[in-house]
């Protein structure tokens, strides 16, 4: 993975958006999405995620910059570019009086593809919508409507799929189904770009993560590299007898006496090496004859990293 440089399937250069009324929503955004990856775009509300997706998909007009999608400029060659892209929007916008079957077939036609009932059946079955195919959309639950939007987005077999906050306000079952589907799509070669508020999800699902805040990309990295670079493991040892100063042979990097000398804290950088870090420390404590009551290991999540980053920006 690291040896070969992946070729970008979406290439965004110098993207600017100033809304009517003067709000500067995107500030010179550069972003490459690699072919076949799951890319998670994280950012607080109002960061510009939906605006960015909107420009790539043709809903929002860029003020400046270029976007190339699968080799096609989204402005000059919009037909070829858009044919490759599927979008599941953040808002639940569906036709009310149409049936599920009609609306999904309509989407496929709109994107210039001939009818393919076999394919549509498979998509509906994958999304547990097959039994509802003759139902009017108005009568479906919110979760089911979201499934319909996903089915519509997949109906023309896009190679790039945008999911804008797909799991916001969605029940556990649908969220699980959705992630299973995202993985399946990725296995079939579809590139997936998603925004989410659930950072654990990005942590679990994404190959790479981008953080956007105030219209600027403040970080893009592989998830593992990110966790390694910015993640921390903290081992806290509750001491039997409080100490007034750190013993000389424990005064190595990352070690500190905390809680008024009642605990010893070791902070390790890097991704998930807590197990050996804690074990080493315990061995040393035993060897030094220092008695202790408890050992606790905590690892900073992507969420901590994210909060740190956004706070630093503010």
């Amino acid at each position, binding site marked *: 993975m690291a040896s070969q440089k992946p070729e970008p399937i979406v290439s965004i250069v110098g993207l600017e958006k100033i809304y009517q009324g003067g709000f500067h929503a995107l500030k010179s955004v550069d972003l490459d999405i690699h072919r076949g990856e799951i890319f998670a775009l994280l950012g607080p509300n109002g960061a510009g995620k939906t605006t960015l997706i909107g420009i790539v998909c043709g809903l929002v*007009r860029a003020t400046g910059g270029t976007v190339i999608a699968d080799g096609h400029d989204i402005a000059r060659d919009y037909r070829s570019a858009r044919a490759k892209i599927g979008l599941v929007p953040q808002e639940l*916008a569906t036709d009310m009086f*149409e049936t599920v079957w*009609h609306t999904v077939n309509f989407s496929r036609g709109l994107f210039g593809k001939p009818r393919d009932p076999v394919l549509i059946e498979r998509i509906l079955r994958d999304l547990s919508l097959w039994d509802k195919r003759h139902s009017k959309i108005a009568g479906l639950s919110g979760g089911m409507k979201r499934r319909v939007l996903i089915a519509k987005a997949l109906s023309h077999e896009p190679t790039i799929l945008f999911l804008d906050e797909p799991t916001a306000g969605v029940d556990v079952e649908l969220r699980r189904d959705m992630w299973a589907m995202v993985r399946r799509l990725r296995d079939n070669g579809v590139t997936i770009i998603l925004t989410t508020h659930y950072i654990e999800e990005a942590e679990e699902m994404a190959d790479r993560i981008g953080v956007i805040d105030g219209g600027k990309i403040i970080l893009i990295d592989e998830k593992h590299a990110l966790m390694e670079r910015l993640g921390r493991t903290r081992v806290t040892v509750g001491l039997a007898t409080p100490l007034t100063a750190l013993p000389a042979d424990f005064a190595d990097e990352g070690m500190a006496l905390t809680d008024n000398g009642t605990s010893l804290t070791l902070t390790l950088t890097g991704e998930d090496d807590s197990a050996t870090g804690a074990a080493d420390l315990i061995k040393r404590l035993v060897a030094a004859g220092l008695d202790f009551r408890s050992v606790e290991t905590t690892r900073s999540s992507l969420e901590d990293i994210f909060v740190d980053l956004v706070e630093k920006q503010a």
Partner: protein
Amino acid sequence: MNFFAVRAIYTFELGRTLRTLFQSLAAPVISTSLYFIVFGSAIGSRMQTIDNVSYGAFIVPGLIMLALLTESVSNASFGIYLPRFTGTIYELLSAPVSALEALMGYVGAAATKSVILGLIILGTARLFVPFEIVHPFWAAAFLILISVSFSLFGFILGLWADGFEKLQVVPIMIITPLTFLGGTFYSIKMLPPTWQTVTMFNPIVYLVNGFRWAFYGQSDVGVGFSLSMIVVFMALCVAIIAWIFKTGWRLRT
């Protein structure tokens, strides 16, 4: 050309009409029948013939025109306003569909519905009064051209409107009065000279009269002029729509 998209939009829009078949077709047929009963039979029997055409027959082209104009405008405007209102327009905007293809789908469907409606009213009228159409080709040409151009106009209205009231205001406050004052129920020669001049500024006069010429071979105004008016109006609508799609006005933020 994204033929599949045109077909998808066109069948989707006609499907919407079929679901509301009663409102869409029965209502105009009923109101037209009422016009015939009141104007054609009750009042018309006391009216003299106009240019050797019985009054009942005289009002047929005007009545068809009245339904055609209002229905074309409201159907086409509703067709594009609804997805803007519900937010489903995102899909059209993200699809590989040009302005021309979107127009062919939306306006094509609205115009098709108007043409069908015109023919149904024509059939209904035939039950009330006997008449022959002198220039059937030109009658069909007027029927189609007017359906298309007012559906284009309705499409613009649907893009411009930012509320349901505005959608209804234009047909009720502009199209219907202009049609009534445009010689639907009378020959403008019946008006005093000053009003005849004023009436000439009402573009619908030319449509009604062109259509009536196709039916009975006579008209208050030149038929060539009628046709040019329609074509100019149509070109203007297309130009406005092209501009809207180019700039993204009311479509893309």
